[in-house]
């Protein structure tokens, strides 16, 4: 049981970034009407607002490279995923460090994203 959350977290992140990097609009099923996204400090709530934000980001191509991923169980079967990595945008040379936190909630045989916080880490 204790290994399950780690592999759920990892599988989720892999799936999420594959979709994000190929076609961000396909992320819609991962969110719900009460899901929350904070993107570079800007808040969004609900699938529609979230997907609108993600698909309106101005780059054409993006590639996420995950450097580290930490997964912890949260209350009631929820899962916390903390990702550090780099973004490469439009094939440019810069690899921008970012971190992202997800909280996943079980629903039937799958999970959805209740919380999503994304920051570029340019500190």
């Amino acid at each position: 049981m204790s290994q399950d959350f780690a592999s759920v977290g990892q599988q989720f992140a892999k799936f999420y970034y594959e979709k994000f990097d190929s076609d961000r609009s396909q992320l819609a099923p991962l969110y719900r009407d009460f899901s929350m996204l904070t993107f570079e400090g800007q808040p969004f709530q609900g699938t529609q607002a979230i997907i609108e934000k993600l698909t309106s980001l101005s780059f054409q191509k993006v590639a996420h490279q995950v450097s580290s991923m930490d997964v912890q169980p949260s209350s009631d079967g929820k899962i916390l995923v903390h990702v550090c990595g780099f973004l490469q945008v439009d094939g440019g040379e810069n690899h921008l460090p970012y971190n992202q936190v997800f909280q996943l909630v079980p629903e039937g045989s799958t999970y959805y994203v209740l919380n999503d916080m994304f920051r570029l880490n340019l500190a």
Partner: protein
Amino acid sequence: MDDAGIQTSASCPPTTISSSSTMAAPPITPSDIEIATRAADHFTRLYYTTYDSDTRLADLPQFYRPTSVLTWNGEPFSGVDGTRALIENMPPTKHEVQSFDCHPIPGTQPPSLLVTVSGNVTHGKGPAGNPTNTPAKTIEGHPRVFSQTFMLVPDPTAPPTKPGEVAKYYIGADIVRFVG
């Protein structure tokens, strides 16, 4: 307390919950968001001040409970004892918070808070801060960028003690990573 260096993004989302929502979780209210922002701001200042203080070995574990789960650059620790073990071996630190984001988590009143912090941390005191008998290979501080995420849980056994305070929170989950 001085605000310099903390760029607080009060980034808790708006409260509209669509009527097609099917989950049983109660909606987030404006009051929840105000609580969340205030509590997260207060918490991060207090936490890092404590971490950077001389009394951290006594004071920092009090933020945690036996059920707390910590991961420090991939290394797991658990509970109050785990926190102590981590802090005992940690050189002195100086944290500088650049930003934090928080989400209130529906389901309890007051809500739990998911907080993620970005900043830098310097370990060690550097040569100027070392006593004269310090061995030559003591760590000199270079700032490291860190990313830390907390799940703050309201403590049912610790009612608020100050006016305006809504709840005392403890750290249920804690993940730290140094970046780069």
